[in-house]
Each structure stands twice: as structure tokens, then as C-alpha cells.
């Protein structure tokens, strides 16, 4: 999914679950898209061939899969001693990123232990772009309707 949709999803869910998402806006913004940083390494490796290669499961590093989720859950568990609410917000923003990517596209859950690719077929690949655009607009409208302020 695109970074904007990840951010809007994190913002909306954190606001519903914990309330007052504006207070955590910066953390939601960072941690709902941080996992996507590995795409930058991928972009630099494929260079001009990006449109043919697209963002398949090969563009995702080990930190984008169950391996990364394990490290994240351990880190959050340890740091929750310091600030529980903040860690809950960071955890939720990040886990929603993993979940939405897993539901919407091809992933390699056990990479680097296995290269096997899985796909849930919830939305056919050929309609993925359309579904993503509709979902992003829908999430934006829902955030707007909840009256969440955008200023950092």
C-alpha cells in the first residue's frame, strides 16, 4: 500500500482506539511509513528499471516481514517500561502497516528463511491500483469526518 494510505489508516485507528491522535501525529507519521524505507534501497538497486520491476515482494527487506515484526515487538515490549501509551501508538501504527501490506499484496512472510511468496487474493492484482486509490480517498474522508487536525 502507498505511504499516505498507511499514515491515514494509522491515524484513524489510533484516534478511534486511544483518542486524541493529534498528540501522537509525529510518531504515527514516522512509524506508519518507516518500514517502507527499504524500498529506497530497492529503487537504487533497480535504477531505471523500476516501472518494469514494480514494488513486488522482492522490494521488501527482512524488516518488512515477520522477522521485522518480531524485532519490533521485542523493542516495543522493552521500551513500554519507559512510556506505555507511546509504545502502544507506535506498535499499532507499525503493525497496521505490516497487516495492510500482507492483506493487499504479495509478501514473503518468512524471508530471509524462505523466499516463498504468498498472496491472499482478497483483491485481484489487476485491480490493486484502483482499490488502493479508492481506499486512500475513503481513509482521507474518514479522517476528515473525525475532525483530526493535521498540524504537526
Amino acid at each position, binding site marked *: 500500500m502507498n505511504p499516505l494510505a498507511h499514515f491515514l489508516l494509522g491515524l484513524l485507528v489510533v484516534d478511534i*482506539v486511544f483518542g486524541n491522535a493529534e498528540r501522537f501525529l509525529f510518531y504515527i507519521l514516522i512509524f506508519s511509513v518507516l518500514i517502507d524505507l527499504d524500498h529506497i534501497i530497492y529503487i537504487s538497486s533497480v535504477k531505471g528499471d523500476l516501472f518494469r520491476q514494480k514494488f513486488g515482494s522482492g522490494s521488501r527487506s527482512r524488516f518488512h516481514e515477520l522477522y521485522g515484526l518480531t524485532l519490533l515487538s521485542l523493542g516495543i515490549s522493552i521500551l513500554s517500561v519507559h512510556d506505555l501509551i507511546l509504545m*502502544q501508538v507506535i506498535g499499532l501504527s507499525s503493525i497496521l502497516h505490516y*497487516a495492510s501490506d500482507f492483506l493487499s499484496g504479495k509478501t514473503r512472510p518468512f524471508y530471509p528463511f524462505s523466499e516463498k511468496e*504468498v498472496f491472499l*487474493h*482478497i483483491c485481484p492484482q489487476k485491480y490493486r491500483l484502483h482499490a488502493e486509490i479508492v481506499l486512500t480517498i475513503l481513509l482521507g474522508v474518514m479522517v476528515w469526518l473525525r475532525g483530526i487536525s493535521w498540524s504537526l
Partner: protein
Amino acid sequence: MVEGNKLEFVKKIRYITDYFLLKIPLPRINPNIISGLSILTSLIFILVVKHSSALGCALLVMTLFLDWLDGLVARRYNLSSEEGYMVDVTSDRLSEGIIFIPFFVAWFYLFALNNILTIYSFTRKRHVVLPLRHIFLVYFIINYL
């Protein structure tokens, strides 16, 4: 395949239940879609649990039902595969992660442990994970209903 290496007592229970349940007419839905739906019900659970514990409990039961149903449909139509196992356990971990965030201590710590056990299970070809959501359902019924 890791699925085939579950603990002996789990296999025995499954053998008995499958004898009866596999005779039930089930729709031929892709089990991966059913696994994915369990993540969505987990998400709805955390969105509504603050407002209605009863609805939250129903969604938790629904999540566990979907988790059970995907395996049953896969066995009924011989769709069991390594890919299916990967989708199933990944859905389980993501579902746990989402469910335990609002309840955090000590559930999220156990979720972190379960993530390690999942990777261990996959690499050692032996399925050893904690049934955290089942235990959590009992905890939830006792404390919130």
C-alpha cells in the same frame, strides 16, 4: 512441511474433530482469504471493544472461528500447502498483535515471544506456538463481560 509436525496431542485432537467436521458441507473458498478476514475482524475488535464488550467478545470468537475454519476448508478440499501454513501463522501473529495492543501488559510481551516461537517453528520444522488468543478469550470473558 511444518503443518505436519504439530505436537502429537494436537494431531490426535484434530484427527477426532476432523472425522466429524470434514463431513459438513463447506463452501470452497480460498483458505488464504479466510485467514485474511481474521485480521480484519481483529481490527474491528479493537475499534469496538471500548464501546461494547459483548460485541468485542463476539468478534474475538469470530476471529478464532475464522482461524479454525481456514484450516478446515484447506483439509476438506486438499488445499493444505506450505504457502497456506505461512499465510495462516502470519495472519495469526498479525491478529494477535492488533488484538493485544490496547491490553498490552502482559499480552504484548507474550505476542513478542510467540513471534520468536513462530520463526523457531518454521526453521526447526516443528510447530510450537502459544494459543494466546484462545487464552485471551477466557481472560476477556472473565474480566470484561
